[in-house]
């Protein structure tokens, strides 16, 4: 089906997200504005104005009451989704690269950059839903500083029930921290060992839609890995031929979607067909590449999958969001092994 092209941002997209119901798309961009869109028809519900710098990240709570944005203007803002009002602002000492609500909405984590002589952190705040939401505590509940010997954290997220915080580092390592105490538990090298790339920075971490018990990483090293939360065991590796900026796991079907492409700074020197600006679909279990979706004319910066698995949205360096809904053939596609498994299962019942 023809995708819906959302043309509301003036500069490259940095993150796109669906709310839990999948009816709204939240997007942030380098043009310092955030937008909320209806996913069904692409109509813009509104924009969140206030930040004075690139907004790197956005997240919405599971009730679609509050959403938070993290920006390079050294602040995190909380917004009321229904009205678009800014209800609170946290002042940070360095740019905020990633924000994420815990699954029970009670906490918000923020990844602050390691620049200007400041140490990078994962800072956790308590979120209160009392009253008009303006009564938030600016004091962080927890600050996890960059560990001795580890490189800075670039992305982070909550695992099932907020039990752990999973962080991706600039050198391709993934670390696990206790979500309540911030205690370091384990680290593992996820990137830089499947090929001979030099830049290994992790660019995205997204959790399994079913129960957040495993997650997918994407990295500049042109690979993507699927990792178990409990053991940090690398379950699968997906190998692409360009730096990957984002990766998502699809519900319903056992697929993963990777996005990326040639570095933005090299884009002007090559033709569109050679930039590898496609969303790539891989089979989650068999690791085979299944297909690609063209459309963007710059690298893909962020991909989000509709929570009910009916489509996905991708935000590109080209400043556009493309909202796709899957055709029947997508749902019908099955590998021989899957078909036999299904046949056996239906025969048994």
């Amino acid at each position, binding site marked *: 089906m023809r995708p819906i092209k959302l043309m509301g941002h003036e500069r490259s997209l940095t993150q796109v997200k669906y709310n*839990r119901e*999948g009816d709204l798309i939240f997007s942030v961009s380098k043009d310092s504005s955030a937008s909320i869109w209806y996913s069904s*028809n692409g109509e813009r519900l509104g924009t969140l104005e206030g930040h004075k710098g690139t907004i790197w990240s956005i997240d919405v709570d599971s009730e679609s009451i509050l959403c938070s944005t993290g920006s390079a203007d050294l602040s995190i803002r909380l917004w009321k989704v229904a009205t678009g009002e800014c209800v609170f602002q946290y002042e940070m000492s360095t740019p905020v690269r990633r924000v994420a609500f815990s699954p029970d909405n009670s906490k918000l984590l923020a990844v602050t950059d390691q620049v200007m002589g400041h140490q990078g952190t994962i800072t956790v705040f308590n979120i209160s839903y009392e009253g008009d939401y303006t009564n938030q505590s600016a004091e962080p509940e927890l600050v996890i500083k960059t560990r001795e010997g580890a490189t800075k954290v670039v992305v982070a997220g909550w695992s*099932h029930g907020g039990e752990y915080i999973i962080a991706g580092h600039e050198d391709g390592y993934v670390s696990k921290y206790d979500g309540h105490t911030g205690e370091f538990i384990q680290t593992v090298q996820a990137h830089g060992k499947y*090929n*001979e790339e030099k830049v290994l920075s992790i660019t995205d971490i997204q959790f399994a839609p079913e*129960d957040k018990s495993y997650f997918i990483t994407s990295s500049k090293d*042109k690979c993507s890995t699927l990792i178990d939360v409990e053991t940090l065991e690398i379950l699968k590796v997906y190998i692409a031929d360009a730096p990957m900026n984002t990766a998502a796991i699809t519900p319903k079907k056992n697929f993963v979607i990777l996005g990326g492409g040639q570095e933005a700074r090299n884009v002007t020197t090559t033709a569109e067909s*050679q930039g590898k600006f496609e969303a790539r679909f891989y089979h989650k279990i068999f690791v085979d590449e299944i297909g690609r979706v063209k459309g963007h004319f710059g690298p893909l910066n962020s991909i989000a999958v509709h929570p009910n698995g009916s489509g996905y949205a991708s935000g590109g360096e080209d400043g556009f969001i493309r909202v796709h809904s899957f055709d029947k053939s997508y749902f019908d596609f099955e590998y021989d092994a899957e078909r*036999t498994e299904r046949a056996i299962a239906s025969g048994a019942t």
Partner: protein
Amino acid sequence: MVHGYTYEDLEKEINVDDVDYTDLEARYQVNQDFGLDNYVVIDGAPVTTEAKVPVLSKVLKKLLSSYGELEDGDDGFYMPIEDGKTKGYLFAQFKEADSAKKAIRQLNGKQLDKSHRLLVNSLSDIENYGSEGNVPEEFVEPEIPEFKEHGFLKDWLLDEQGRDQLLLHQSETVGIYWNKKKSDPEKVIEPRQGFTSKYAKFSPKGTYLCSIHPQGVQSWGGPEFESLSKYIHNQVRLIDFSPNENYLVTLSPLPITMPETAAERAHFPFKEENEGHKLVIWDIKTGEPARSFALPPHLEGQKEMPWPLVKWSHDDKYCARQGPNALAIYETPSFQLLNKKLVQIDSIVDFEWAPASVKLANSKVEGGEYLLSYWTPESSNQTARVALMQIPSTQVLRTTNLFQVSDCKMHWHDEGKYLCVKVDRHTKSGKTVFSNLEFFKTTEKDIPVEKLELKEVVVNFAWEPKTERFITISRLDDGTNNPAIPKNIISFYAPELSQKTKITSSSYKCYDTIEKKYSNTIFWSPKGRFAVVATIGKSNGEIEFYDCSYDDDKKPGNNKDVNKAKLLKAEKYGGMTNLSWDPSGRFVAAWSSAWIHTIENGYKLFEFTGNMLRDDTKDQFKEFIWRPRPASLLSAADRKRVRKNLREYSAQFDEADAMEADTATREAILNRRRLLEEWRDYRSKYAKVESTENEVQAEIIEEIKEEIIEEKEEVIE
């Protein structure tokens, strides 16, 4: 003790580390430079009376000081005298150890006069080897390293299915694989990371695989690609093989220098006489250098090096090097100059050996003779010339004179029967260029030269293997040079058939042309008949497959003229940088190398009909090399029998292919089943974990329905 202090007390008070000892250190410093290295011992000097000592000293001092300054007085030069006579040896001390080294290297063995030969050694060597017991009296036979089995070097030719091997070079990793057509190539050995620091290269018959390292070249072979030999040549850049794999030629930008210590020298392949040389010919089997050369002065410091610098006759019997105004031809295995002299050829530009032995019309030599061709440009009182020279007689058999020549290119037919010289000529005004093709028919009487004059300039020429047909790519040079207009013309030529369908030696006829192309390269199948014409190095890369003996069944009466070019298939391949036929002529590989650009790196594999078998995009892909094969051992009769029974053979192969495909798919399915099982197993651990299934109550808050409220139709006239 007077002050009631003990040493211990002092030590407590004064930190020894803080005391400044520099004045003392300076006074008692041991001179590090002062060592045995500065001394030389000279033996073999004349034994004379005391009276002649001043004269002798003067002579020797002068000789020694030409290598560096000596220490003053007796320290620098000491000749012991006993019973009024010198003892025939003396000591000298240089100020610099380097001068001593130089003196030893150059003065040792010098003939002072008729009966006196100087033996110059360093004092440390005398210390080491001269004193008793340091060198064992008994001769101990050096241990011969145990013979290492490397397996059968031609093992890959025994493959039951007759598959070809291929080498894939991706990023820093090199792997050798069996070609499996559509399926993933099968590993021969585990791919090796960091296999070569530059590139890998097969020898012309495929026996050896060489890798390049900063220290030199390493050859590999046998079923497991084990290490065979090392050819130590520091910073080697370019390598080449003789056609029969007897010799390896290497070139390094660094001149050979001898290592300083004797221990290192023991393992160093070169001798003093090789010093300063950059080009080395090695015996491949022994790993020893056979001959080395300095670069000719006109090539020294050039950025683009013509390569190969050493060209070989077809059977490795001779090799030749081109110098300014001369050709140096060497005989193997002695590598001495043929007839002990250079072949003087004024202002020679280029030369080529005949790629096979040539049976001259009047020759009685069994098995044919060695020929080479060369050309010289126009000079003030001479025309440009192309000449054929017979080796070893160095007799010139045939020359042609040419006018207004800008460039010549010599294309030998693979059987040595024909030589086509592509002569690029300029018009009188010098503004535009056109080409002549001059054909030397070496096997005919007096070597007739046939001329084909064209209006266009020929950019590429290729003989079909084994036959007399060829393809050219030409372009009309009309002064305009707009790259956007495709101007290249592909032309297919064959010898004209006379009435009796016998090939006459008269002329070549163009039987097909295709105009307005970008194509710039021609690749004939090694078995002939099929040719690939490609556009390489432009962004609009394209591959076209031609059948040059296409037999149109629809016209049964017209089977005389089988020379028809039929385009079988055209494929686009934007990033393509290289193309290569497999040695059997069944497959064509085209690839995009990361050495040239980073667009669409990877390779594509085609059948000879142009049917694409594989499209493998690999990041950082560098090179695809087919492993060459030696010439077939089948006789003409054998080949005929195979052709006769082709149908039976092909049925067998079809079956094998089908089985192969089946096992491959079955394996893939089984593998997928296993992966799926593993995944289910993994997920079952989380079955108990409460799943946050997304049960969203669909609640319609607002629904937009399109309703037509009013509809009007206006008819505009």
